């Protein structure tokens, strides 16, 4: 077992609970020492604090975003004119599959969770995320899954069956080699990681809230992450099951999707879209939380219609599971069922509309502070509303049979996902960058970024609506000159150039501002939620004193009446656990210290997953190191024992 200097120190230097009075500086020193995850190469693999892991998550997710964007650029070049030979069909198929898989599994979901990991404990006013080691483990797994996929891609083993990987095309008969296996196994990696984070976030929001933050005072981003996490928990097992069935069909000759032996290719689609549709909301719901936060802060008033917004998020969560069949309208299933799914698909417009109206109402009555985060949110409005409306069109069965699997759909979901998730996310970066780094991003470069990206986006994707109506199917590597799709495609490619330029401005902005940007201070935007109640960047223990809350906008209503939390040890990672409903103090939990075992467990898991692609025995052999590392992970630690010996079991 590895031992760490400060761990030894803590177990030796056990003294009675340091209580007040104690000077603030002294208390901070203690907290710093207690919560410090250490520095240096070996410590890096042991760190567990949510800001550390959250930062890694955010950076990793955006690396994958850039890779996915690069692939998109390749596709746009290939499609810029008819009969282009820039990419071979084989490579193009890998590229578009990698683009979709990267954006969905390695960027969109992880980046939302990343912001959740970083922000939720701060917003809830606690010192760390629940299950911090699991959190570290999930990041290692996520990274390993992504690296595995890209290593495979570089070695010409990139999946080439679409991000949806429908059998039989992805099955053993039509996808020889290991390409589809890597795709399916990447799903397993990211699923495990996403599920772990979902459990952490639910637990954090339910049990680690600041005293006084009853359910009806949780910030909307908190609600959004809560709904997101519940959706992950119910949706992700579906795709994990689906990709497992696909892997088994491919590797051990099961017949789930072989119609000749009683299997069924549509089973895959049902299970996939049972995940795949909620997936859209999994990506989009946290973005709604970000929008709510930004709108409140920059219109200088609490968001209008908090209960309605929360209910809308919940409704999104529920209805999102009831419309998966609208991805299968072209399969020729019985019409009766279709009507139900049309109704459900239209119904989901209602919660989205509630949110849009509430936000407009907030802006209407607010005092507007024109800053880049808000500008990105305005961009979000324009794009997302358009995308939502084309979504309403797609809900209709007859229309869907015409435009399904055409560029109309490509346009639609890019409007929804880039408009509905990426624009708020960019807004969120401009909003929270000062909190995370302590420095402001440049407003001027931010405007360049916004306008290039906004114009480029619309140039790229608006023509695709028309292309779809003019009969251009998705996932084609080229098209014929006489089809008449050349002009629109060329415009789209030009738009992609603009988007690229926008992203470059953004990167440059981050690069320079991180080094030389103006210092932010604790609360540069005058925002209301608890993450702004601490330094920027937050200390490793998050808060000098645990905050308490007396309204939905705690920093706007905080008074001297707010009580102070006393009595948590500061020589141990004690965290106050509160009650689910009213967030009154309930009990205390000692949070784990840094550990190398999440890393080793992730390595063992990776070996098992990757090995099993090549040999079934990897499942048995790989289980041994996995069991060993997991056992070591949970094995009692010296300092915990010492602490408990000092103070006895507290019942």
């Amino acid at each position, binding site marked *: 077992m590895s031992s760490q200097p400060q761990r030894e120190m803590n177990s030796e230097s056990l003294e009675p609970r340091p209580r007040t009075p104690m000077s603030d500086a002294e208390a901070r020193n203690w907290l710093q020492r207690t919560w410090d995850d250490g520095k240096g190469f070996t410590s890096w693999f042991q760190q567990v604090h949510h800001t550390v892991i959250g930062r890694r998550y955010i950076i990793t997710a955006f690396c994958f975003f850039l890779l996915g964007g690069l692939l998109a650029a390749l596709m746009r070049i290939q499609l810029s004119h008819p009969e282009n030979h820039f990419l071979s069909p084989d490579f193009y198929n890998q590229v578009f599959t990698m683009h979709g898989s990267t954006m969905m599994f390695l960027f969109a979901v992880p980046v939302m969770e990343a912001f959740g990991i970083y922000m939720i404990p701060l917003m809830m006013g606690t010192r760390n995320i629940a299950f911090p080691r699991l959190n570290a483990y999930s990041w290692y797994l996520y990274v390993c899954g992504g690296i595995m996929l890209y290593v495979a891609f570089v070695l010409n083993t990139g999946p080439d069956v679409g991000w949806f990987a429908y059998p039989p095309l992805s099955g053993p008969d039509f996808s020889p080699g290991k390409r589809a296996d890597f795709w399916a196994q990447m799903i397993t990696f990211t699923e495990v990681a996403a599920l772990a984070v979902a459990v952490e976030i639910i637990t954090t929001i339910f049990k680690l809230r600041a005293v006084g933050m009853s359910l009806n005072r949780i910030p909307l981003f908190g609600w959004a992450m809560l709904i997101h996490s519940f959706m992950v928990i119910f949706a992700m097992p579906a795709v*994990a099951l689906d990709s497992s069935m696909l892997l088994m069909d491919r590797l051990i000759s099961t*017949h789930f999707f072989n119609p000749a032996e009683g299997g069924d290719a549509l089973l895959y689609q049902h299970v996939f879209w049972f995940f795949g549709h909620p997936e859209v909301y999994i990506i989009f719901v946290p973005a709604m939380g970000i929008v709510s936060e930004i709108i409140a802060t920059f219109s200088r008033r609490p968001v209008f219609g908090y209960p309605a917004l929360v209910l809308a998020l919940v409704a999104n969560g529920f209805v999102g599971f009831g419309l998966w069949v609208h991805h299968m309208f072209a399969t020729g299933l019985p019409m009766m069922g279709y009507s139900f799914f049309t109704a459900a698909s239209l119904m989901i417009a209602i919660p989205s509309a509630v949110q849009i109206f509430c936000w407009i109402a907030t802006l209407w009555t607010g005092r507007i502070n024109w800053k880049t985060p808000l500008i990105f949110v305005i961009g979000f409005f324009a794009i997302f509303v358009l995308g939502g409306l084309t979504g309403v069109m797609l809900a209709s069965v007859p229309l869907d049979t015409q435009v399904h699997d055409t560029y109309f759909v490509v346009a639609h979901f890019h409007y929804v996902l880039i408009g509905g998730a990426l624009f708020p996310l960019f807004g969120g970066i401009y909003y929270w960058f000062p909190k995370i780094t302590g420095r402001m991003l440049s407003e001027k470069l931010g405007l360049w970024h916004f306008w290039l990206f906004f114009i480029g986006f619309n140039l790229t994707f608006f023509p695709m609506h028309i292309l779809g109506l003019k009969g251009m199917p998705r996932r084609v590597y080229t098209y014929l000159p006489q089809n008449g799709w050349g002009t629109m495609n060329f415009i789209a490619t030009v738009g992609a150039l603009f988007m690229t330029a926008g992203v470059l401005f953004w990167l440059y902005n981050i690069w320079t501002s991180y080094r030389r940007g103006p210092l932010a201070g604790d609360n540069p935007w005058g925002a209301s939620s608890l993450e702004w109640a601490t330094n920027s960047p937050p200390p490793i223990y998050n808060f000098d004193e645990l905050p308490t809350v007396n309204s939905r906008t705690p920093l706007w209503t905080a008074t001297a009446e*707010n009580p102070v939390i006393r009595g948590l040890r500061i020589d141990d990672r004690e965290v106050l656990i509160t009650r689910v409903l009213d967030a009154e103090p309930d009990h205390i939990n000692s949070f784990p210290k840094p550990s190398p075992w999440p890393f080793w467990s992730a390595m063992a898991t990776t070996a098992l997953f990757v090995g099993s692609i090549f040999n079934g025995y990897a499942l048995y052999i790989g289980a041994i190191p996995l069991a060993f590392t997991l056992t070591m992970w949970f094995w009692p630690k010296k300092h915990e024992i010492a602490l408990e010996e000092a103070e006895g079991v507290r019942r």
Partner: protein
Amino acid sequence: MSASIANSQQPPRREIDVSALPKTVFGSGQSILWWGTMGMVVIEGTFFALLLASYFYLRTRVTDWPPAQTVPSLNFGTINIAIAVLSLIPNYLAKKAGSSFNLAGCRLWLTIMSLISIVCLFLRWFEFSSLNCMWYDNAYASVTWTILGMHTVHLITDGFDTWILNIMMFTGPIQGKRFMDVSENALYWNFVVLAWIPIYLVLYWAPRWL
């Protein structure tokens, strides 16, 4: 500094002293460990539910069920689930011993639970052969094997967990949180057994009834 951070120079503020709060709790929904366990339970429950739904979906795609095969024989499966259901009693006692910090009780009932997990796994071995098919025969066989295989994975992990916990109970060090582990481990075994009941009915009786 923003408003909610206390400043010691100012007049004394109302304090909430949490130093007397417990660190070891057993209530439903009380500890974060409970929420973690329930998270796992819900995730895996969803997985099983979808797997069973796939079973019935595949059923609708063929006329004979099981296709051209004899039905699975009941013996081992029935004995095994009977043992599993009965094991809920020692499991409950283990949970109770855990939440009352009864070390001797924990050792006793955990030992019994460890042995039961071995017996269940042993019987499970024979269950596979009593399915009367191999997973590569057809879709029915594939889904049947997968359901039973998935559940076996749960048996193995929970059995492993029980063994480790039991060993810790004997070797020490004994911590308050170990007793919480005993309680959560019992909760998880309840899930393994509860999930087993529909699985048993589907695997062994659905081929007879459908």
